[in-house]
């Protein structure tokens, strides 16, 4: 895992949160891997979809750190449609807060941990 300051987001994490929030506003609160890869590609005018390894490693890491939560689709529903079942992710409150901090810039990102320490 790349070395980075606690509370900061990697570019891929920022892209995922950004795209996920955008999709939520448009009425899609849940997303699966390919869906977010496609959204990121379109939003960032990228030539290619995010690499499998990069995307799923980031999703796994973000879920472990509480920025995302996930739920597997009912296997029967997937089987009825003749496709693999999807893992649906959604952004948590912590994920939204992390995105707000990241958007606000390094000043707020640096203040936030101090504020949290002060309230503990």
């Amino acid at each position, binding site marked *: 895992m790349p070395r980075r300051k606690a509370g900061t987001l990697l570019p891929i994490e920022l892209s995922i949160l950004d795209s996920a929030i955008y999709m939520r506003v448009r009425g899609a609160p849940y997303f699966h891997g390919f869906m977010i890869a*496609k959204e990121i590609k379109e939003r960032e005018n990228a030539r290619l979809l995010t690499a499998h*390894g990069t995307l799923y490693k980031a999703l796994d890491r973000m879920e472990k750190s509480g920025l995302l939560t996930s739920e*597997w689709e009912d296997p029967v529903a997937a089987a009825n449609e003749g496709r693999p079942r999807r893992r649906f992710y959604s952004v948590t409150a912590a994920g939204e807060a992390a995105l707000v901090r990241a958007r606000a810039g390094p000043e707020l990102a640096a203040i936030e941990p101090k504020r949290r320490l002060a309230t503990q």
Partner: protein
Amino acid sequence: MRWFLDLAIGLTRSWTAVYIRGLPSETRAERREEIDCDLWHQQRLADLEREPPTGTAIEILVRWLAGVPSDITWRLETGAAQPKGITTMNDSLPMRIGLVLLSLPLLALILNGVAIAFFDAGDFNNSTEHVAWGLAFLLTPLVTLIGLWLCRAQPRLGFAMVVVGALAGALIMFWMAFITVPMALAVIVFAAFRAGFLPRSSTRQQPA
């Protein structure tokens, strides 16, 4: 060029199967299903949008290759996060190396048996003798080899196969018994270690 798309999907799936090896079954199944789902959706979307299969295949290949470093680091992190359990002597690196080194002469003996049985190699009186001796030279190392590789997964069956194969092979070449019998015994002792029948002197507990 549909085959190229199938190849790209197959390579991505095969790579996934490789790097998730050794992880808990739940973690393996989850990663496999996520990749399968992703590939299915990409292919489906390309079909709906009537994109040429070659372009989709290239994109899948690039996504796969560009993600390989992340897959490896994810595998290392995920593997390291799992409880390691017990590393036993029959699963140690020297035992694995020993297994490979023992397999090589056994493979050579198998090839020798094939040459005698089916290509009239060696100095025998007639074709019946060729086939009989060839099969004997072929089957004994083959049984030993399979037994050695089975020893960890099925210790009793694997060990029994090694004992039967190694001793039969040693006795078939009775005129060289001073070499073949000690070699057979060495192989049997190795198999006993690999099957976990001998004391595990180097057993160590990894912290969970």
